[in-house]
């Protein structure tokens, strides 16, 4: 049975507990790939004191669910968890968790990275950084578009 858990909110999460939930009691799971994204204290050369995450509440969970569904259609997955925090965060705070359980590692790795790449370019979150020089909206990176584009090329596989 394929499972899916999507959480968006201000609450912190426990990566170890989330990973355990992906395989505990499911002896068909052989592989769990996961990702934790964290607030860094330096971004593009400026020191960051706080990071505020804005989102589009009506769209956020829907968009994460569509990305996870797309992953479940592309690879053989047993379970997917996506958690994204919003609101005010500090350096070293956890921002995002993606965990994927599968029978074999190839599917788990690919799906986990795919979900992060799509989340980065399609899910409606925006970061604003406070630095000693003031506040600024984080600019989107071309490298994130490139990362997401890699998966488009594989549509024909």
């Amino acid at each position, binding site marked *: 049975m394929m499972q899916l858990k999507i959480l968006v909110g201000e609450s912190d999460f426990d990566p170890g507990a989330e990973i355990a939930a992906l395989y505990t009691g499911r002896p068909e799971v052989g592989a769990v790939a996961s990702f934790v994204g964290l607030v860094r204290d330096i971004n593009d050369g400026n020191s960051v004191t706080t990071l505020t995450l804005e989102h589009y509440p009506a769209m956020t969970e829907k968009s994460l669910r569509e990305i996870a569904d797309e992953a479940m259609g592309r690879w053989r997955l047993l379970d997917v968890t996506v958690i994204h925090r919003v609101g005010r965060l500090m350096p070293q705070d956890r921002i995002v968790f993606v965990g994927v359980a599968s029978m074999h590692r190839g599917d788990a790795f690919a799906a986990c990275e795919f979900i992060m790449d799509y989340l980065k370019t399609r*899910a409606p*979150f925006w*970061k604003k950084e406070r630095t000693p020089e003031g506040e600024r909206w984080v600019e989107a990176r071309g490298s994130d578009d490139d990362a997401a584009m890699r998966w488009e090329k594989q549509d024909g596989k």
Partner: protein
Amino acid sequence: MKVKVLYFAKLRELFGMENEELELPGERAHAAAVVDLLRKRGEPWSKALALDAGYRMAVNQTLAGLVTPVQDGDEIAIFPPVTGG
């Protein structure tokens, strides 16, 4: 037809509002019609929503383009490229 338009992040700040209702002629249109109407207001709309300005849109909570159809009651969001994760 009436649509609800939402703004996020830098564009929300620049336009000084979170959302508004817009009245458009006719019963159906493309998302482009919404953008055209906003651009006619002049600065800062015309510049922020110029063709090469790199803004993004969603219609009814799904990523959309200028040719995406819109109709009465739709929710149209306009925002900068996303930066989550």
